[in-house]
């Protein structure tokens, strides 16, 4: 498969860019933030996106989705990255949709996928428990009692967790933290007894939650994938999320870079545009190369997810690591090259740095994925 967007994907991109620039520019995020919006995104806008097929980007047409595949989802993520659009796209349309589509039973698929595609259901993945991403260290217990399980423990950094209707929870049904075996994914109602959610206001003004599970009841019917063998599903879902975040960061970084190059041409110091200074030119040119690399890595990961989902692990780590590192560099150079004005809250560029920091950390930072790649390559 050629490593370029198809015509269909290019059309999707152009349409998405037009829509987002009109309906969800950076100022929309700023408004949500300043209004201390309790949801953290616009439900109306999400409904509109659903109507365009975005919410169901991974959902089969039979369930009302647009079935654009991961590459299509990546196109949308990248565009939303450009405008820092707040929506439950990652949590619901990528993570939850992947979990349901790839690993859930037919009943779950039939029940939830149409609702996701319609924009009527928000779901969230609850995996991390400590400050650093380490899915194998899942410790939240799901104790078997009769036909049921009781979930107890804490999850953190749950994107959209505070408004999700359903949570996909990684729990330990066997083994010890650190082991891949013994993990099970449960579908838990966010309103279920024993679930306590605390919204955490994050640096990027987007949504996350800490969720406490206090003897929350679940049954075998609520399991996604295999009991004790949820690791494979968890990895698959996380890989999709990592590739989606890579695309998003690539978009954010690209846009921050465009703003910076624009500023270099317009800002005058010492009698000439600062973009005429060779030291800045070389740094911008180097960054341009890095951005191209990040984009290639993200696109490849998404294509591999479409083509051979199970083999995508290394590619998703590559994309997440590279896009994370490059987006970080892009945001740092953006602030430095904007000078004082870039430090003001009034200017949008700082919002890019904030969002990139969060996206870079989520589901493994560059160090996590570099380590993973080294392990996968046997050193």
């Amino acid at each position: 498969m050629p490593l370029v967007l198809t015509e269909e994907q290019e059309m999707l991109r152009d349409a998405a860019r037009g829509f987002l620039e009109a309906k969800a520019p950076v100022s929309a995020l700023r408004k949500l933030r300043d209004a201390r919006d309790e949801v953290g995104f616009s439900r109306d806008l999400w409904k509109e996106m659903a109507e365009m097929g975005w919410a169901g980007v991974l959902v089969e047409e039979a369930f009302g989705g647009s079935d654009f595949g991961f590459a299509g989802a990546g196109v949308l993520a990248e565009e939303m990255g450009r405008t820092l659009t707040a929506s439950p796209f990652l949590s619901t349309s990528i993570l939850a949709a992947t979990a349901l589509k790839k690993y859930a039973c037919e009943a779950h698929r039939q029940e939830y996928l149409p609702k996701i595609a319609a924009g009527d259901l928000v779901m969230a993945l609850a995996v991390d428990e400590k400050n650093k991403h380490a899915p194998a260290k899942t410790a939240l217990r799901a104790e078997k009692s009769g036909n049921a399980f009781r979930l107890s423990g804490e999850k953190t950094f749950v994107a959209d967790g505070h408004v999700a209707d359903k949570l996909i929870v990684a729990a330990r049904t066997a083994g010890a933290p650190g082991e891949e075996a013994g993990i099970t994914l449960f579908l838990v109602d966010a309103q279920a007894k024993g679930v306590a959610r605390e919204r955490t206001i994050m640096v990027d003004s987007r949504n996350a939650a800490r969720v406490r599970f206090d003897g929350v009841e679940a049954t075998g019917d609520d399991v996604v994938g295999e009991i004790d063998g949820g690791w494979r599903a968890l990895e698959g879902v996380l890989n999709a999320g990592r590739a989606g975040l890579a695309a998003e960061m690539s978009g954010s970084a690209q846009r921050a870079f465009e703003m910076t190059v624009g500023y270099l041409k317009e800002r005058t110091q010492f009698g000439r545009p600062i973009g005429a200074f060779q030291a800045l030119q070389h740094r911008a040119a180097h960054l341009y190369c890095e951005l191209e690399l990040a984009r290639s890595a993200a696109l490849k990961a998404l294509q591999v997810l479409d083509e051979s989902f199970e083999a995508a692990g290394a590619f998703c780590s590559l994309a997440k690591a590279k896009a994370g590192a490059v987006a970080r560099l892009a945001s740092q150079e953006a602030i430095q090259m904007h000078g004082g004005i870039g430090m003001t809250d009034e200017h949008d560029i700082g919002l890019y740095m904030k969002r990139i920091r969060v996206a870079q950390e989520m589901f493994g930072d560059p160090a996590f994925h570099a380590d993973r790649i080294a392990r996968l390559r046997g050193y």
Partner: protein
Amino acid sequence: MADLEKFRAETRAWLEENCPPDMRKPMRGEEDICWGGKRWKFQSEAQKIWLERMAARGWTVPTWPKEYGGGGLSKEEAKILKEEMRRIKARSPLESFGIWMLGPALLEYGAHEQKAHFLPPIARGEIRWCQGYSEPNAGSDLASLQCRCEDRGDHWLVNGQKIWTSYADESDWIFVLVRTDREAPKHLGISFILIDMESPGVTTRPIRLISGKSPFCETFFDDVKVPKEHAPGVSAVVGELNRGWDVAKYLLTHEREMIGAGGSGAIGGAASPGEVAARLVGVDETGRLADPILRGRIAEAEIDGWAFLLTMERLKDEAKAGKGMGAKSSMLKYYGTEFNKRRYELMMDAAGSDGLEWEGERSEDGKLARSWLRTKANSIEGGTSEVQLNIIAKRILELPDA
């Protein structure tokens, strides 16, 4: 030497007797600094007494001449005072831009009348000053500043805008770089002028940073009349008219050394990224940081930070041995601020998602994230890293102009 030992003994005794116990507690943060000024509300009686007692001896500004409200101490004596204050963990009685910047400028460039008029109230913490240097369109190219100051016979008329005027909204007076000759080449035609913030036409507006609230303001001058003399014989202009650039440069060098040293001052402190990371990330069974790649990056950063501290020490020792620091202060500014940014990136890496919280008690209202964002300005304020590198290239390496 005997004199110095005597001085030490007397100082120790005096401090012991006069420094209120509350003023010996470590400051919790910027909110515990005493800035003084007309509108100053003392946090406590102790803070007030401490300022008064120290000011009475001139020890808020120990090395300034006694006639201008200073302590008249020699460098050696001032060092002893500092050491003795540190010994009992005494807080600084007063901080201000008047002490850090205007004072040194007046002492170097001011007329006797100006010093006599302005310095004592600074020393006593009665007048709080802020600085008006940068402009939105000037930035690194400070000399291109546009704030206009016209000669209207008995007064100056000032029009324009200043940015990054720290604490302008709480200050009484401001020292400002203005353009007094629009025909002259840009470094000439600039003057250093003192303005009462209560003058009609002066307004100020705080600036919100990406890290949140900040002391920075924008300050606007709209047909502001500044008397030629603030008091008989006390000119509003410091130094020669149209030669304010000299004063500015003097203070910029001064500031650069302070920032270079300050920005890296924390390096040697307790919070090394390695220790922070070990606490936040945990160690594996061999006692090594559980994240091996982060561990390597932190170790490399600690090496650089440590070598940088030693370089500060060496330059200080060289200065003592009579070799001036000169343009090497640009090295400290550049490396220190870049290192500080790197240090906070690593701390954020170590803190992971906990470090991304922005509000709430758990994160002390996003303390780490806000500090991290705030460091991004280190390499911009007080002369950008790019400007420092230019200075090193030109003045130290003597590379040719483009």
